[in-house]
């Protein structure tokens, strides 16, 4: 196990946890608002407090989304022919015999997921701030309420799938969120272009 390569630095690991935890809190409190879950008072004290927590956790989430830009945006925007083949083969998730093309640090699915997260996360954050800071302005509130909830639904579909793919579906992946490193051989099989480029 001596040949380990670094896939995420300390800041990226921290930021990922900040995003995950804030997202979890926002989801729980969000569901409580959505369905008027009075039982949640047992956890958050009151809906007043829950609102304050939701809004300020939104600030934390927005900050982590912003910092993630530096880690992923540029790479996620570059779409290669190999990415196209990867997508056509659905990442090999529906057939073990599939031979996948070499991928960079992010594979095509990860790029797509990041862009979706950026879009929906950006929309839910922006609309959340409007609902928070422009109360009573009917036109803006209606649009924001819609945007907040559409992005919420998309996130509820995307995030569990992301968690599954990063844990159960791909053993050895979750350690990136803990240690930031992976075995060189593991990386070579999945991110050949990246290993090549970095010269590991």
């Amino acid at each position, binding site marked *: 196990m001596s040949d380990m390569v670094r896939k995420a630095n300390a800041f990226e690991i921290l930021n990922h946890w900040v995003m995950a935890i804030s997202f979890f809190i926002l989801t729980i409190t969000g569901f409580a608002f959505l369905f008027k879950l*009075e039982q949640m008072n047992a956890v958050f004290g009151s809906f007043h407090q829950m609102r304050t927590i939701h809004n300020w956790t939104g600030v934390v989430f927005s900050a982590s989304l912003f910092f993630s830009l530096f880690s992923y945006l540029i790479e996620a925007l570059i779409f290669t022919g190999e990415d196209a083949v990867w997508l056509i083969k659905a990442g090999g998730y529906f057939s073990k015999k599939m031979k996948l093309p070499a991928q960079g640090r992010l594979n095509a699915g990860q790029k797509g997921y990041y862009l979706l997260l950026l879009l929906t996360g950006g929309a839910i954050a922006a609309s959340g701030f409007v609902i928070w800071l422009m109360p*009573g302005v009917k036109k803006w509130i209606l649009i924001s309420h*819609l945007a907040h*909830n559409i992005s*919420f*639904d998309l996130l509820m579909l995307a995030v569990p799938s992301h968690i*599954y793919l990063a844990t159960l579906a791909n053993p050895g992946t979750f350690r990136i969120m803990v240690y930031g490193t992976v075995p060189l051989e593991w990386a070579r099989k999945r991110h050949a272009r990246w290993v090549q480029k970095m010269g590991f």
Partner: protein
Amino acid sequence: MSTTKRKSLIISPELCIGCRGCQTACKEWNQLSATKTTNKGTIENPPDLTPNLFNRIRYLEVPSETNPVRWLFVSQRCMHCDDAGCMKICPAPGAIYKTKEGIVAYDKEKCIGCKLCVAGCPFNIPRYDEKNKISKCHLCSDRVAEGLVPACAKTCPTGAISYGDRDDMLAKAHAAGYQKLYGQADLGGLGTLYAFKDAPKVYGMDENPAIPESVVFWHKVLKPLAYWGLGGAVAASLLHYVAFGPKKDEEVK
């Protein structure tokens, strides 16, 4: 189910003389302070509903062919919708609730001051007090619970605001020759009905009031999709795990 009947008001603008006794009675019963306003050359005053003004007489001058000086006094207040947009969109349990008499009442203690109800209401009714808590007509829910008549209806000297069991009131109005009252069927039936003798727009009211489409769409589609989506994504993941299994390292080429 309680057998208490749905209560309602019928407002007849043609009977209203614009005395604004209802505005005063409401303030008195609800202990709402007066607000200093300026004379704008109309009897309509204050110019809009406020957190201290739950009902208001709107004044409209709409000459018709037969009546060159037709003055209309139209009371404006919460309509106590059966399908209430304010209550639908409100995220705080118990902040806006229905009483057994069908009144759309509220509990300031539970209101979190987000003002989403403003966006959900088709009639631009909810206002906010200095603590950002919802404030509007509650059809004197406290009086009604004790079997009393709402203060504004009780005070009205001409019968322009009448109060009673909704079904009886509708039957009487129909017997008196009104084919259809304003609000009879809108939004599941309003609690505040209007006996208009002309098109609603003459009285400054929407012909077809409705909860904003985006709020209806949110309620019918987006809300259920949140938990079906989450549940579906988790279920699909587990199903994939069972059907295809993980990408074990030795299987990755």
